[in-house]
């Protein structure tokens, strides 16, 4: 509904008042003196009387700030630095007001009113942004919104007791707002968005400092998934325009920071990430798969006669924070799968398997990749449990002749090239640091190679491994040990295959990889 008459003028006056009070030397430490005087003015002007008025006040303030920025940006008379100084003069004051109101709303120990207000304001700013994004289209500017969100993040993460006590709720509110503004919803804001979620304070809070250390991890993972989902269609094309290339490069930088500082985070959420990263983004996916827990020592994969199955870590399952078994839908399919795994019935299960996975005839989009990934990991983890239940551990001999391997062998035979590529990728995505999944899937891939009844299958297995190896580093440990075993172990007769010698440059490539491995 329309704002009550006069409210916009009143708000404009109040905002101007506050900005001058904020900048006056008499405002006191953290503007507390100015704030107490200003709150009185708000009371007198009736702004704090109802929730609705408060909402309208913040929305109009936001719009006024945004309009001011668009005017300053359109003037072009100043250097970027001066334009920013002009905008931030008002923006920073507005943010300080928001922060003070949040901190002082309700009584000191009552977090609910503070967080409610924060959610309200973040929601309002997000709302104004999305509308602006919609209306101005390619004229949309991120600057005012970036500054508001960023400075509010700094203000509300100051080392103050009252804020520390509600930091988890504060960061949750930010994550909710950033999820609302995820790149697929506000592509014009994507560069600011990535800058915000990679700000050192945001990363510190979400991944390192929240009281129960991992409270922030699922929220941060969700934001990264938002980014990958947005990037996916654009990364599927080999030619990247410069604006996509920059975003991709920025994304790599953030992932490198995460790989260096929080490898366990990438380990825990690798499954969800690989589910949304396009299969052709090999280096980015390798970067995630290369993460390993910091307390783990990885034996050099090139060590001659490395006995992988003797490693202590190899028996431990990795933490997987995604509930992948719940992703196997529909429920009837899951029920049949469980039944087949347990009793190898219904007998029609294997022949119907492909129909569950194939969703269209459109080349490149024939299969439900998420279901494929979930199926592979679920069957594999059930296989490991089954082998352990027999008091054994995964190896080339213990993984065979089971309902689990039936399913894998059926898929490798029955799927077309595209389907088989996705299937082999799902397996290769589990080749990571020493753990029971890496070991099981490494054996499985080699077993499928050894048992393949056509050379095309063997070639495709080799291609999937090789395309992951020839890109620049990093390379996951599990990938290296699997490929080294493939080319070293005479039982696979790797070098006898036609495709190894199909062209001089391919042959040379294999030899150079082999040289580095053997």
């Amino acid at each position, binding site marked *: 509904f329309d704002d009550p008459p006069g409210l916009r003028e009143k708000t404009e006056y109040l905002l101007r008042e506050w900005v001058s009070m904020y900048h006056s030397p008499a405002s006191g430490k953290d503007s507390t003196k100015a704030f107490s005087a200003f709150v009185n003015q708000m009371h007198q002007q009736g702004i704090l009387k109802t929730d609705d008025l408060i909402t309208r006040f913040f929305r109009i303030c936001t719009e006024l700030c945004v309009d001011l920025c668009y005017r300053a940006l359109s003037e072009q008379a100043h250097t970027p630095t001066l334009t920013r100084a002009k905008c931030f003069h008002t923006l920073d004051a507005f943010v300080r007001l928001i922060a003070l109101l949040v901190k002082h709303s309700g009584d000191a120990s009552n977090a609910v009113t503070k967080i409610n207000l924060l959610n309200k304001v973040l929601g309002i700013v997000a709302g104004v942004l999305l509308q602006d994004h919609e209306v101005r289209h390619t004229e949309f500017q991120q600057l005012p919104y970036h500054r508001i969100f960023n400075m509010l993040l700094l203000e509300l993460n100051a080392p103050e007791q009252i804020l520390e006590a509600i930091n988890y709720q504060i960061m949750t509110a930010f994550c909710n707002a950033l999820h609302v503004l995820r790149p697929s919803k506000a592509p014009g804001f994507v560069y600011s968005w990535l800058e915000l979620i990679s700000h050192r304070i945001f990363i510190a809070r979400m991944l390192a400092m929240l009281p129960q250390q991992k409270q922030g991890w699922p929220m941060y993972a969700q934001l990264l998934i938002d980014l990958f989902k947005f990037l996916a269609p654009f990364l599927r*094309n080999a030619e990247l325009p410069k604006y996509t290339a920059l975003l991709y490069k920025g994304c790599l930088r953030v992932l490198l920071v995460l790989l260096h500082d929080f490898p366990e985070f990438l380990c825990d959420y690798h499954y969800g990430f690989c589910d949304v990263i396009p299969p052709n983004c090999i280096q980015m996916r390798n970067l995630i798969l290369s993460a390993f827990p910091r307390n783990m020592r990885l034996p050099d994969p090139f060590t001659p006669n490395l006995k992988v199955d003797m490693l202590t870590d190899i028996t431990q399952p990795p933490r997987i924070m995604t509930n992948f078994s719940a992703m196997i839908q529909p429920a009837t399919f899951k029920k049949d799968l469980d039944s087949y795994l347990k009793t190898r019935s219904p007998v029609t299960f294997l022949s119907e398997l492909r129909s569950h996975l194939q969703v269209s005839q459109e080349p*490149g989009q024939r299969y439900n990749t998420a279901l494929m990934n979930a199926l592979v990991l679920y069957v594999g983890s059930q296989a490991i449990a089954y082998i352990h239940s027999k008091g054994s551990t995964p190896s080339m001999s213990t993984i065979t002749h089971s309902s689990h391997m039936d399913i894998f062998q059926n898929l490798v035979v029955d799927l077309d090239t595209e389907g088989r590529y996705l299937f082999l990728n799902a397996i290769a995505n589990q080749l990571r640091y020493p753990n029971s999944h890496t070991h099981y899937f490494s054996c499985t891939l080699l077993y499928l190679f050894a048992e393949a009844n056509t050379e095309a299958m063997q070639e495709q297995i080799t291609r999937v491994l090789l395309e992951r190896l020839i890109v620049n580093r990093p390379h996951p440990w599990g990938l290296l040990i699997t490929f080294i075993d493939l080319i070293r172990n005479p039982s696979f007769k790797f070098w006898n295959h036609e495709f190894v010698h199909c062209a001089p440059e391919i042959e040379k490539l294999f030899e150079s990889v082999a040289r580095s491995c053997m």
Partner: protein
Amino acid sequence: PLGPAIMTKDHLYQQTMMESAFHHLPHPSDSERLRNYLPRNQCPTPPYHSQVMPSHMDSLDLFQRLSTEALFFIFYYQEGTKAQYLAAKALKRQSWRFHTKYMMWFQRHEEPKTITDEYELGTYIYFDYEKWGQRKKEGFTFEYRYLE
């Protein structure tokens, strides 16, 4: 084998918006508080300067090798930053002490066994902040004076 993805109308719209946003990227200084005295201007470092930041740029070790004047410069012109913090630590290593009441620095020549008012007054070089403030306007020179 998957080939390029088919671009839907939505994707093309997103691409258009991304491309326009590309022309006004946020500048790193947008994510930090305004600097009163040394704003981070957006002009790139001239090519004849080294483009690569020296490593350990933010180590106390590096700051300790700066001159006293440089440390005071950083302390007063880059307040509220890590650089100011490191400059303060380096100054303390040079026996400079920050006098919170007068908000200025003084240098002690020997570490007192016990700190008494009388001892505090007697042994340090007095750093005249007011005059320094005035000098700052005129051109930035330091003035040291002994207190008898």
